[in-house]
């Protein structure tokens, strides 16, 4: 449907202008702020060399909620997600302005250690990417790295608990020391989630975690996300609107690097305020 966007640039850009106008008048989009946020983006802009990927995004993430970031390809969802735990630091030519407040502390500031930050904010990627090590060593990687446990028995406990929470324990308990790459795609992705929660992060970032999986595996991960949301805040980037509608509490819609609309998932999917959002959700665009 790129064709449509090209065909009607005035409509698109005027809608974008309208959306921006809404934002600039109040400083924040309605529904962008929450009480006692875990994580807040304030006026975030991201540039890759000369290209601006994100423009002035401000929004909050609440305690123990699932926030879905949706929007057409190239709208900057993944970039924003990687901005939250400073994964873009290692991307050359990437520059971030504005700030992200995590637990009352700005993370884009001298003296903030991205290593410590990432230990509190896990990330799961689009393609399952287990290390070419054993299943056990994959899960034990984080706790070992940060020295979270003292004894082998403790480590065993952490591995077992993490695998149990992702529902993988019963499937792999007899072959913990087999290579992780021998697992199926869905199992690999759950292993990656187990690997992430083994360091007990406060926030879990998920970048289209189900896009490489079949429907059954997707369903398992979605129910796992609901389960995890009891203890963690989850931000998920997804292409799949049904998925956003099924799992998330709130939804944010992005378009060409701008945050267009944010609100409860019900509101976004039933009564979107912006025409761009409506077009996307109804499948007329994207």
């Amino acid at each position: 449907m790129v064709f449509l966007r090209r065909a009607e640039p005035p409509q698109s850009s005027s809608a974008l202008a309208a959306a921006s106008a809404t934002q600039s008048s109040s400083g924040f989009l309605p529904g962008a702020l929450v009480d006692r946020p875990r994580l807040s983006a304030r006026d975030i802009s991201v540039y890759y060399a000369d290209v601006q990927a994100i423009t002035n995004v401000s929004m909050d993430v609440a305690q123990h909620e699932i926030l879905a970031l949706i929007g057409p390809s190239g709208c900057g969802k993944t970039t924003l997600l990687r901005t939250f735990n400073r994964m873009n630091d290692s991307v050359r030519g990437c520059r971030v302005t504005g700030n992200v407040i995590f637990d009352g502390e700005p993370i884009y500031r001298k003296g903030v250690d991205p290593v410590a930050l990432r230990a509190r904010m896990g990330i799961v990627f689009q393609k399952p990417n287990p290390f070419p090590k054993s299943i056990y060593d994959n899960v034990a990687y984080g706790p070992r790295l940060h020295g979270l446990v003292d004894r082998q028995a403790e480590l065993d406990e952490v591995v077992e608990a993490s695998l149990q929470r992702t529902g993988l324990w019963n499937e792999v308990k007899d072959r913990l020391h087999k290579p992780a790459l021998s697992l199926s795609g869905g199992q690999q992705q759950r292993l990656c989630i187990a690997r992430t929660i083994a360091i007990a992060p406060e926030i879990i970032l998920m970048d289209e975690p189900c896009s490489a999986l079949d429907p059954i595996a997707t369903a398992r991960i979605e129910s796992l996300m609901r389960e995890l949301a009891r203890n963690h805040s989850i931000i998920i980037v997804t292409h799949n609107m049904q998925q956003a509608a099924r799992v998330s509490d709130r939804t944010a819609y992005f378009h060409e690097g701008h945050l267009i609309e944010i609100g409860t998932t019900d509101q976004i999917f039933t009564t979107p305020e912006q025409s761009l959002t409506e077009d996307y959700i109804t499948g007329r665009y994207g």
Partner: protein
Amino acid sequence: MNNTIDPERLRQRLADARAERLQASLQRRHRKEAVFRGLGLGAVCLALGFLAVLLFTIFSQGMSAFRSSHVQLTLEFDAQRLGDAGSERERLEQYQTWLDEALLRALDAPESRASAVRPLLSAAAVYQVRDRLEDVAARPGGRATLWVLASDEVDLIQTGVVDRAWPEAARSLSDQHLAWIDRLSEAELLERRYNRAFFTGADSREPEVAGIWGAVVGSFLTLVVTLALAFPVGVATAVYLEEFAPRNRLTDLIELNINNLAAVPSIIFGLLGLAIFINTLGMPRSAPLVGGLVLTLITLPTIIIATRSALRAVPNSLRDAATGMGASRLQVTLHHVLPMAMPGILTGTIIGLAQALGETAPLLMIGMVAFIANVPSGFADPATVLPVQIFIWSDSPERAFIAKTSAAIMVLLGFLAVMNLAAVLLRRRFEHRLK
């Protein structure tokens, strides 16, 4: 592992542990990180530092060889005596006498014997006089002033390689000689001048007249043979493997074989050259032809591998387009793919030739290590090549050859630098074209 894990309590415990320990361990981990990074930088610096030391050593030793000590002498000839001399040998002796007389005059030491002052001049000085002043000598009352080559011992004193402070027994020149050298210097009759012989001469037993031209020509002739054979054969092989060969075990084996040949020690190729080209086929020893054949075998894998990757970089759409126009497979390759890949192929060829130019060991095996005082003039003439000349000189007992060796290395490195630079420029053009 027991079954009574309470996930929630465990999670809390982990989170607490992390809050406690992370800060403490972070400092240590970052220090480790800095050390690791420092080790990496250190390794690079170590390698490059060695390179710098190597080049500095060679350049500082070699610079002095581009100049050599000359003595300015005024020769007074006597055409009559030259006419009396019958044979060439007698004529030379006559020239030598004139040279001795001129030197004794310059030293203002008429009471000394000619044999005492001769160590100051090169043994080649008399030839220099004969070749340059033949006309003057034949004229009645001929007289000419000429800078003639000093001996290598004088040059070593002048460059400070041999220390004047050494005891007399440790030097080949006596204290009397040193005094003479001083006298010549004061009279501005002794000077270090451009060393023409080094660039125009062939090898010699006398360091002051030994030159690299013979070896340069030898290297050139050898590389001509290598290029003439390795380029067509290498490109043809690569074209076959990349464009025509079916993908099967045999092709796989050929490929593995070629990659292996690229890593076979070069001295093995020397053994092959000795056993096959010289002993079985009866080709001449020390000849650029045989050297070129051996280097062809060494260079082939490099050219094949480079050509294959150049061919692979040519987009398939080009082949499809040409095939779609009704061109045969061979026509597609000859008219479209090869021209497109040519800069890449040439890059690989130049790199292969540079490698061949620096190759020494296999050429020792086929006799290019012989002492050859003539500049070769054909592919079957006995010849040596630049790196082998370096090897021969480095093995010579005369001190003066150290500087010669270093200077020859500088020339060799110069050639290699030019070739590699050409390769880099070509590659840049190739990549630009494919974009």
